[in-house]
């Protein structure tokens, strides 16, 4: 088996957190450096993994899980500390590490106080998110997921901020976010345990192993109910309309790093789980619920985009826009064919990088000016040209400009959606989100960055020092994956293939049974 590289990736931030514990809290620079170095180790290892997997598994067409580690943990319950990456989880892992690394260097003006606790929590958070993506065991997946929730809550209510446009305090935002996540996870837990129990009966031995669970053909009725519960849990996390309202509030309240991680990767756990667990194990249930998901997805796209038009707070614009973008992911999921799923997964990655950059820039501007109220701002490109470049790139990526990371995923998603006759009308409506997306994003860009110079912002400084890191790293990834989409799409395709195959197989089986679900 060799060197347990995934465990190493997981442990690096934890070790960073442990080291930070012993550093005096006044030494915030050293703590930041430790956090940066440890997350960079994870990132570097992940990039190496990505390249190795891409050349040795994707290009050769082998696919499947690699770098696996299996250590029985609770043998009686069938819990295995089982890690591994395939073409689906590796992009997500990469995403987590990109954002984890860059979020360390994000700016939020409240972060300076209690820097030590902040970075320790951040590192734990990053580890938790990474764990969910590389877990091959349902139990481990859930465990890491729960690890994520608590730091988020603490970070929002301590380092968060209220909004000027909506009567929302950071405590409210943090509470809402946490409760939503917990309600979602409660449903997940119930669904998981039920599935586990059923599987133990069918298999004869208890297991949480996702691959083994996927070999079972659960009864259709069971699948529909359990998938419903699971979809509720995961789509809460993915901020599907009408369960989205935690997301803008939460992002607006959270400090920059948390917004980045949350919008960038945490939400993606919802999509990841929905596909890896929901679609893979319960294809018949997925078939049943897909039309409803599609309808809500359209609502996501259009509804959130329209709301964006009415926003005056930068973080709310980005928050609602991320809700809108999740609609694309959901449409891809609802299409249930390989192209749509590829699009959905790639979209998650694309939105992650892009929204991280967006939040990073918004956070930087907020940190510098102490305001996110758009009418107060304006002409900031005079004072901070570098931040303006980052902001424009993020905005363009958000608007789905080709050559940046989000175009190919969106296109693929829509190809997948239009392939399904029943989804053509929803997809058509959702396509208007492309136009609306350009409207709100460009409005914000114009009103924040461009226009006459405002004297009151002459004191703010442009990006310098370590604040360059998020801009450079994220733009590099946005452009690289935009210009060479096959780096991402081939990978995703190899990961999604078994899931799509399972869906096809379940559909044909259902058709042979007389089509009665």
């Amino acid at each position, binding site marked *: 088996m060799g060197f347990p590289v995934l465990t190493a990736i997981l442990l690096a931030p934890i070790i960073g957190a442990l080291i930070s514990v012993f550093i005096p809290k006044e030494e915030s620079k050293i703590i930041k450096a430790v956090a940066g170095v440890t997350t960079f180790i994870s990132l570097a290892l992940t990039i190496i993994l990505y390249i190795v997997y891409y050349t040795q598994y994707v290009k050769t067409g082998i696919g499947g899980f690699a770098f696996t580690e299996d250590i029985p943990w609770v043998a009686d319950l069938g819990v295995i500390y089982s890690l591994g990456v395939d073409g689906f989880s590796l992009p997500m892992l990469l995403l987590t590490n990109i954002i984890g690394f860059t979020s360390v260097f994000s700016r939020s003006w409240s972060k300076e106080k209690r820097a030590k606790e902040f970075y320790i929590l951040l590192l734990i958070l990053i580890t938790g998110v990474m764990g969910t993506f590389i877990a091959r065991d349902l139990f481990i997946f859930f465990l890491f997921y729960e690890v994520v929730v608590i730091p988020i809550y603490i970070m929002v209510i301590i380092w968060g901020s209220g909004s000027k446009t*909506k009567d929302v305090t950071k405590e409210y935002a943090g509470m*809402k976010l946490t*409760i939503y996540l917990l309600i979602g996870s409660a449903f997940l837990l119930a669904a998981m345990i039920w599935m586990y129990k059923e599987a133990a009966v069918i298999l004869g031995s208890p297991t949480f192993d996702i691959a083994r669970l996927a070999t079972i053909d659960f009864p259709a009725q069971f699948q529909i109910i359990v998938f419903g519960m699971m979809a509720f849990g995961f789509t809460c996390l993915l901020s599907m309309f*009408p369960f*989205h*309202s*935690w997301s803008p509030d939460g992002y607006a309240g959270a400090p920059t790093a948390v917004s980045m991680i949350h919008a960038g990767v945490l939400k993606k756990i919802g999509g990841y789980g929905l596909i890896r667990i929901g679609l893979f194990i319960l294809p018949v249930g997925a078939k049943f619920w897909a039309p409803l998901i599609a309808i809500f997805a359209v609502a996501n796209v259009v*509804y959130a985009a*329209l*709301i*964006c*038009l*009415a*926003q005056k707070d930068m973080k709310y614009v980005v928050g609602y826009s991320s809700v809108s973008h999740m609609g694309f992911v959901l449409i891809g999921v609802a299409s249930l*064919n*390989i*192209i749509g799923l*590829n699009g959905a997964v790639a979209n998650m990655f694309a939105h992650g990088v892009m929204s991280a950059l967006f939040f990073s820039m918004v956070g930087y501007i907020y940190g510098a000016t102490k305001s996110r109220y758009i009418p107060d701002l304006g*002409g900031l*490109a*005079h004072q901070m040209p570098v931040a303006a470049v980052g902001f424009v790139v993020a905005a*363009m990526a958000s*608007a789905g*400009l*080709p*050559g940046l990371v989000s*175009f*190919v995923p969106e*296109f*693929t998603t*829509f*190809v997948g959606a*239009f*392939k399904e006759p029943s989804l053509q009308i929803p997809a*058509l409506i959702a*396509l*208007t989100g*492309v*136009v609306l997306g*350009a*409207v709100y994003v*460009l*409005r914000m*860009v*114009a009103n924040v*960055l*461009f*226009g*006459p*110079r405002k004297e009151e912002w002459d004191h703010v400084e442009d990006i310098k020092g370590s604040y360059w890191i998020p801009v450079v790293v994220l733009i590099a990834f946005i452009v690289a994956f935009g210009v060479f*989409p*096959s780096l991402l*799409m*081939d990978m995703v*395709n190899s990961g999604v293939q078994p899931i799509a195959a399972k869906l096809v197989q379940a559909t044909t089986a259902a058709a042979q049974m007389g089509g009665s679900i």
Partner: protein
Amino acid sequence: MIDFALHNAWLIPLLPAIAFVLIALVLRPLPKASAFVGITAILISFVLAIHVGLGVIQAGDQFVEHPLKQVVTWFEMSGLKIEMGVQIDPTSAMMLFVVTLVALLVNIYSLGYMHGDPGFSRFYAFLALFAMSMLGLVIAPNLLQMFVFWELVGLCSYLLIGFWWHKYSAREAAKKAFITTRTGDFGLLLGILLLQINFGTLDLVALGEMIPNFQQYTNLTFGGLTAIAAILFLGPIGKSGQFPLHVWLPDAMEGPTPVSALIHAATMVVAGVFLVGRTLILFKTVPGAMAFVAFMGGFTALFAATIAITQTEMKKILAYSTVSQLGYMMLALGAGSLTASMFHLMTHAFFKALMFLGAGSVLHAMHNEANIWKYGGLKKKMPITYWTFLTGCLAIAGIFPFAGFFSKDEILLVVKEASHGAQFGGLYTLLFWMATITAAMTAFYMFRMFFICFHGEPRDKSFHPHEAPFSMTFALVVLSVLSVFGGFVGAPWVEHGFGYYVRLGEFHHPQVDPVIIGVSTILALGAIFLAYWIYGKKAISHEALAQKFAPLYKLSFNKYYIDEIYLWLIHNILDGLGRVLWWFDITVVDGIIDGVANTAKVLGSVLRRVQTGKLQHYALVLFAGVVVLVIIMGFADTTSASLSLLGGVR
């Protein structure tokens, strides 16, 4: 060299891309070096493009049916394969030539025009990016690549219109341009998606083979394909400034003038025409869509011309003229002639770029004073600008032997031919007359501007205009020469002229229709004379005319209030919808959530009374619970064996 150029045509867009990266990342603080790199890159591209053109001419009509294609896979998965690459055929070779030529000239021109601007390097970076995108677009072998670069040129347009972003008007114009074209792109993307879904490919050659017999390959109906074509056409409507999405193009004049010349006159705006040209086979298959294109083109041509007559800013007039000429090209496509459309596209690129650059020269001299009524008598001060501008005006007016004459007459000819067709004959007859009237109006408003600006006495003595530096006049002269002689390549007496290469279907040798030539020339000359009469000789007071036709004048001067209508719609309908939904989100969606939370809170405040905080109460309840549990487990349920105390020791 020719062979090298043909097989390495991908270098043509790549070189400006490299220049962009170099300037953006390294050379930004060094304006001179930036300009040098930018110009060098586009110069090499230009040389390559010429060789590609020569190669295509050498090959005869071999590439017309079988384009030279080189592709690599961009990304693929089961059921979807997208390629990137180069497709060389006469049309793209012609476009390569036009784009690199105009881009090169504009790059040189900008040396003078943008001299001393704080964003000089940035400007060259954007120009390079634009050149890359536009060249990538014209060589695209499939629709998705076309769309990719289509969007990128849109981005460049956005960046360059908003180049002076500190100006309020520039920032708004840039935003408007991007969003308006985006609206059209919605249709284009939808159309592309539908083609991909139905035909399984976006490759132009493959589509060209499948579409005429679409019933074999798909289960599309005739109406379905018509709908796809119409939806696809939304993209060109936005990009090429066709009615009703033309509103962004006049505002786009907020950008620096070289940009207007390059992007908003010669190259980017014709992308829409080019796209329709590339997919003309689709439109030809469904005559309904064809008539739609023709009508939109013809209507836009006339519509924009009526606006241009009353405008008071040089660049605005030119912008509306561009809209009008784009309408012309669309009309030609709608009449089924790729040749006429592309021919006009080329000549238009020459003379319109020329006029924009001339206008830039004037603006440069007049310190960006835009109102033409402040000008006057510039002829003496700026002779080169004057003479070159005159050739441009004559070309666009369609006076023999200037370039516009040939292309415009060819359009009129094909429209007339189309009116003899079986379907929609009446429509094409109408369009023919509309186009003829438009031609006359074009001559009129062009010379109106010309006389106001260059003739008479200086109206505002505070300006001291001077001729532009050499870098600027050089571009003017080159374009002027092309405006004069550029039309000969498609002249009827040339054996294998323009139409022999750039065509769809069989080669028809251009015919000479004396009636059309006569009518159009007489009308154009008459219009020029009228303009001279009113504005040059001032025999008729133009103010009196405006008074006499006050309602019409106002309608035209205010551009039919279309901007106002859009603003009203956006501010009231779209934003209003946003506000209503936000209210809905806060009160209803959030309200339900908060309501659930509050229910829990209220329940909690009731239940907290149970928590007296007294230990004895808790202990009491605890032991009561023990009693109850023991009773249940021990006495009621004898099946739960392991927990049953009664059976425990037995």
